[in-house]
């Protein structure tokens, strides 16, 4: 199925940077579906609508759903399988004889939904989910360093988890916005060279740093690498 599934983080990073609108032209270009699970909707819409601080941001994401840019995807399979994935993922590492519970229902529901619809990618900004999928040994080192304790790795759980997540590709809001930039969707923000030298590059720099400073787990080094790639295009 031609689909991309979003975790909460990218929607939050994009909204806080006034970039949620970019999903619409991206979706038109993609010619597929942009999904979120109901657990993600609860986090980015239902919860903030009950608060004061991010209520308007919740409304903005809700509008994207109402306008059909994002669709809520929920099945019995997602509900049941997410529970199983939680048991697996949260038993991969053990510290002091206790399972190290690093992942939560919403982010795992995204991965399970991606598996069910055979999505082409999931968009995940936060670090732990990506690390567990892409580099579990690095995750192990991180936990060991931070917890100042030995970490036991349950290989069977890890292998089962990795096998389940095998064909799922992870991208971030930063990659999405870079593609939007390449497609010219953000050209309206390019200033004249008399206002700022290298306006296109400065715009992309601003976009990526904005996303980073609002929670996308991208390093300064990675931002510089993206800028370098775009300079050569």
């Amino acid at each position, binding site marked *: 199925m031609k689909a*991309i599934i979003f975790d*909460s*983080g990218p929607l*939050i*990073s994009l909204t*806080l940077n006034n970039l949620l609108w970019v999903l619409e032209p*991206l979706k038109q270009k*993609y010619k597929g579906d942009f999904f979120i699970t109901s657990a993600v909707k609860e*986090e*980015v819409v239902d919860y*903030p609508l009950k*608060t004061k*601080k*991010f209520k308007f*941001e919740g409304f903005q994401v809700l509008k994207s759903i109402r306008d059909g840019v994002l669709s809520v995807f929920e099945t019995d399979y997602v509900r049941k399988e997410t529970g199983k994935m939680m048991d697996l993922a949260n038993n991969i590492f053990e*510290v*002091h004889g*206790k399972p*190290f*519970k*690093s*992942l*939560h*229902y*919403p*982010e795992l529901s995204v991965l399970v939904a991606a598996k069910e619809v055979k999505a*082409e*990618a999931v968009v995940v900004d*936060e*670090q*732990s989910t990506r*690390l567990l999928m*892409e580099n579990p040994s*690095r*995750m192990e080192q*991180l*936990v060991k360093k*931070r*917890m*100042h*304790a030995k970490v036991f790795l349950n290989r069977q759980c890890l292998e089962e988890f990795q096998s389940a997540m095998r064909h799922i590709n*992870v*991208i*971030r809001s930063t*990659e*999405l916005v*870079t*593609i939007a930039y390449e497609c010219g969707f953000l050209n309206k923000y390019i200033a004249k060279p008399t206002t700022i030298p290298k306006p296109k590059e400065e715009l992309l720099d601003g976009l990526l740093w904005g996303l*980073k*400073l*609002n*929670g*996308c*787990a*991208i*390093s300064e080094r*990675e931002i510089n*690498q*993206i800028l370098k*790639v775009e300079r050569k295009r």
Partner: protein
Amino acid sequence: MDSKVKEDIKSVLTQLITILSRKEQGDALKVKELSNHVIHNATLFQDEDSISVTVLVYALSKLMESGTIREYGEFRKPIETAYKFLNRNDVERFRRRLRKIFVLISSKDSKLRLYVEDVLNHAQIRRGCKICEHGVSCAKSAELLNISQWELMQYLGKTRLADELKSSDVRSRLRFTRKLFT
């Protein structure tokens, strides 16, 4: 309550009571370091008690730092009582006492109240970030600290957490994303 968590909380409260019993320079920093000590248990056990204690201790450190709390006795006594309940294994009363201390912090002064509520909220967010640094996901950390992911991500972005890890293969990820949209 897990026995290790209980012993750890008792140890933290004992040290906190000692600090609050004598007024010395650097008290706020000592209390803040105490809060960091509880974070390991908060991360591992993800239990309500470790999280409450870490937030409470951190919030106290910020209020001490800003000079909002000058007389420690007002907080030392209820903390001593909380300790006694915990020592007696009366977990329910211990938790009620902690809640009363939170209310005490919030109700100090009507002018200060907003500031103090802000401090408590800030303490929750800071502790949430600390838990994220230990490898727990954003969503999980937000749930444990009873805050929204929106608040946590805003704060997380300003830390150096993402910079501490080895970079992923940005070029491949970008190439892959580009292919999705062509």
